């Protein structure tokens, strides 16, 4: 059944750039010779390694366990030998801990036992064991999100994919509609809710058509950025506003990404932990853009190779172009939350220098949180972070980047907001 969206919010309409990979089914990448699985692929604390260098591991074997609190299990994504547990550059200018596994080339799986007609507790335990995290980008561990502190009545599956360029969720929805629906039902059972909505932007008509044939309710949303942001999505689907400083669960809604639902289904029915995902490799700087199914820990160089290599790319981005991180080089690997890698040409990315703010208030008129980004930037440049919070409302920012996108003076507003938030967080 198709449900009309209930509300609208401010936002921007960047060009989609989805055409190169829009119709491509996900393609499996050849098994990499070596994977580097990061210990921190989720929000919270890094997982604790339970393997040693030299130890043989099977595909799907747990190699690092949840460190308690907000954390998640990590599994071997290929069968082979642990080469080392080491610190490496992460491709974003920092360093991270990796478990490096050399693939043996054999197909040895050590999955969990499949569950048939599981109870709510069994599903929750399975989601925790399988190391499932929110696959939309934030990577919040799902077993925590599915145990909200207040009772909820609705589960929304987020298939909005409002970021330009990315088509990984679209590819998944077109090909694995039934598995996503079953995964959603398992999550709904774990939550104890009966109402499940699937939110998809209208620029994915095939996915909407597939879902409307199932028994779940589909909400076709206007193509708008940031439609996939949790608060905006809840508002559009249900008309409920998440109060400031409260969790989305306080409106009775839990949002999960479609890729998460797919992973839940595989974990429950096949016992397969979260060890691979669909990644979109696209942009004007790559020869043949593709949607690839990659094991977690696959290095970016292998993805670039599988897509014919780069051409005239000046900027590498992990994730979408609006919120993703710029990369220094090919050191980056696929993680549980990587939706895509972009190879941007000079024409696609912005290289203009900032010019003075002309006070046009376009940033405020597109802010989905109704904030004042220009005030925040002004006070942040003056190092008056308290005023940035007072006059700019910076603490409520969801960091979608719409303000920087629209700014005709090319000012780095989102960057200033992140700085202000960081500075305010440091203060007691």
């Amino acid at each position, binding site marked *: 059944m198709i449900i009309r969206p209930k509300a609208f919010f401010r936002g*921007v309409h*960047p060009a989609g750039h989805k055409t190169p990979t829009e119709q491509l089914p996900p393609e499996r990448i050849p098994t990499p010779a070596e994977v580097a699985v990061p210990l921190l692929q989720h929000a919270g604390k890094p997982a604790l390694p339970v393997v040693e260098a030299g130890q043989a591991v099977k595909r799907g074997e747990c190699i690092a366990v949840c460190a308690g609190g907000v954390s998640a299990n990590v599994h071997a994504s290929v069968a082979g030998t642990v080469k080392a547990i080491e610190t490496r550059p992460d491709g974003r*200018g920092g360093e991270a801990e990796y478990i490096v596994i050399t693939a043996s080339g054999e197909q040895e799986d050590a999955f969990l036992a499949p569950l048939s007609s599981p109870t709510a507790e069994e599903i929750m335990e399975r989601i925790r064991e399988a190391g499932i995290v929110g696959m939309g980008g934030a990577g919040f561990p799902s077993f925590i999100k599915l145990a909200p502190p207040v009772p909820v009545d609705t589960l929304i599956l987020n298939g909005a994919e409002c970021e*330009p360029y990315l088509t990984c969720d679209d590819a998944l929805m077109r090909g694995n509609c039934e598995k996503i629906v079953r995964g959603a039902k398992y999550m709904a059972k774990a939550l104890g809710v009966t109402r499940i909505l699937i939110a998809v932007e209208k620029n994915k008509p095939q996915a909407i058509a597939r879902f409307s044939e199932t028994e779940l309710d589909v909400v076709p949303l206007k193509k708008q950025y940031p439609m996939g942001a949790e*608060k*905006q999505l809840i*508002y559009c689907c249900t008309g409920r*506003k*998440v*109060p*400031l400083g*409260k969790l989305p669960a306080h409106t009775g809604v839990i949002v999960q990404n479609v890729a998460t639902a797919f992973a839940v289904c595989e974990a429950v029915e096949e016992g397969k932990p979260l060890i691979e995902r669909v990644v979109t490799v696209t942009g004007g700087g790559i020869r043949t853009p593709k949607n690839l199914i990659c094991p977690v820990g696959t290095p970016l160089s292998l993805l670039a190779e599988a897509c014919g290599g780069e051409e005239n790319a*000046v*900027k590498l*981005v992990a994730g979408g*172009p*609006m*919120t*993703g991180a*710029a*990369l*220094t080089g090919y050191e980056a690997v696929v993680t549980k939350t990587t939706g895509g890698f*972009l190879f*941007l040409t000079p024409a*696609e*990315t*912005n*290289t*203009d220098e900032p*010019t*003075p703010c*002309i*006070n*046009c*208030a376009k940033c*405020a*008129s597109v802010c*989905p*949180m*109704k*904030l*004042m980004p*220009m*005030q925040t930037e002004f006070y942040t440049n003056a190092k008056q972070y308290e005023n940035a919070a*007072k*006059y*700019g*409302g910076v603490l*409520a920012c969801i*960091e979608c*980047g719409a303000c*920087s*996108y629209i*700014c*005709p*003076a*090319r000012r*780095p507003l*989102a*960057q200033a907001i992140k700085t202000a938030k960081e500075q305010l967080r440091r203060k007691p």
Partner: protein
Amino acid sequence: MRILSSAPHIKTRRTTKHIMLDVLIALLPATAAGIVYFGWQAAVLIAVSLASAVLTEFVWYLIEHKVWRDGGVVRAWAKQFDYTSLVTGLLLALCLPANIEGWYMPLLGSIFAVGVVKMLFGGTGKNIVNPAIAGRVFLFISFALMTVYPAANFAPIGEQNLDIWWTNTWVSATTSPTGAGDALTTGATQLGNMLGKKPILSNLDLFLGTGVAGCIGETCKLALLIGYVYLCVRGVIKWYLPLLYIGVTGLFAVALEGFNFDYFLPSVLSGGLILGACFMATDYVTTPKSTLGNLIYFTALGLLTAGLRKATGLEVVSFCILLMNFAVFLLDIAIKPRPFGYVRKKKEANK
């Protein structure tokens, strides 16, 4: 080498230059109408104003960057040139009387507007008041010539509006009974109109600017409204703000005349109200940032304009905008953002 920067990595194509270019395009109909109505004198004044505005900014750039000895100065300057001084120069010329005797006025006005009001305060985006308005007011209080307005080259086509007897002629409009182009009206004549309760032009003439004496760009309301529609379509200004200003002015004038609605159209269509509302008051730099702030700002402008017109019998749009420009900062700090999902803090009971 990779480019590293914070997200987002894509940006809209529209830059400050495009916006300023849109404003210039929107001003073209009014400029053309001004040249048609007031002849070559208007064209010369506009050219002087544009040239001196751009030249002032260029000279400022040379001094500020101390690059007069380097090569490629013009290219470096052109790269950062964002058309704002062109907008200032054109707007200033459009609110001057088309009187070639005052050829030095656009020159001095532009130098004051760009040099003092804009660049001295830090350049584009840093000025406190609208440069064109400040330039006009500077000339208005400096030269008597600013009060002499030649009438347009066309005779009025409508009947004189005998129903309304202007008791307070704030309009810079007058009839041109002897035909085209030879009548000059001065401030004194306006005062005479006011005291003598002479009839004013028909609404149609006020709208088209035929026979109306006034500034180069403000007489043809039709051309200004075409520009206004263009600005709205291109998303440069919010459509409701100029309408709010114009509407409040008209209604408050009506209220001041004892709710005589015959005064609505003449007070809306005369003077520089439409030019001021569509192009001057909507200047980004000197308007509040928030929507609520803008609503307050434009309403206050309307009340102030109608009230001061009634009280002084002069054309006061530029003075009102200048006054309200100083209130922008206060409006900006008084209105704090209410984020999406804002919950009003409950008053603590019995405390």
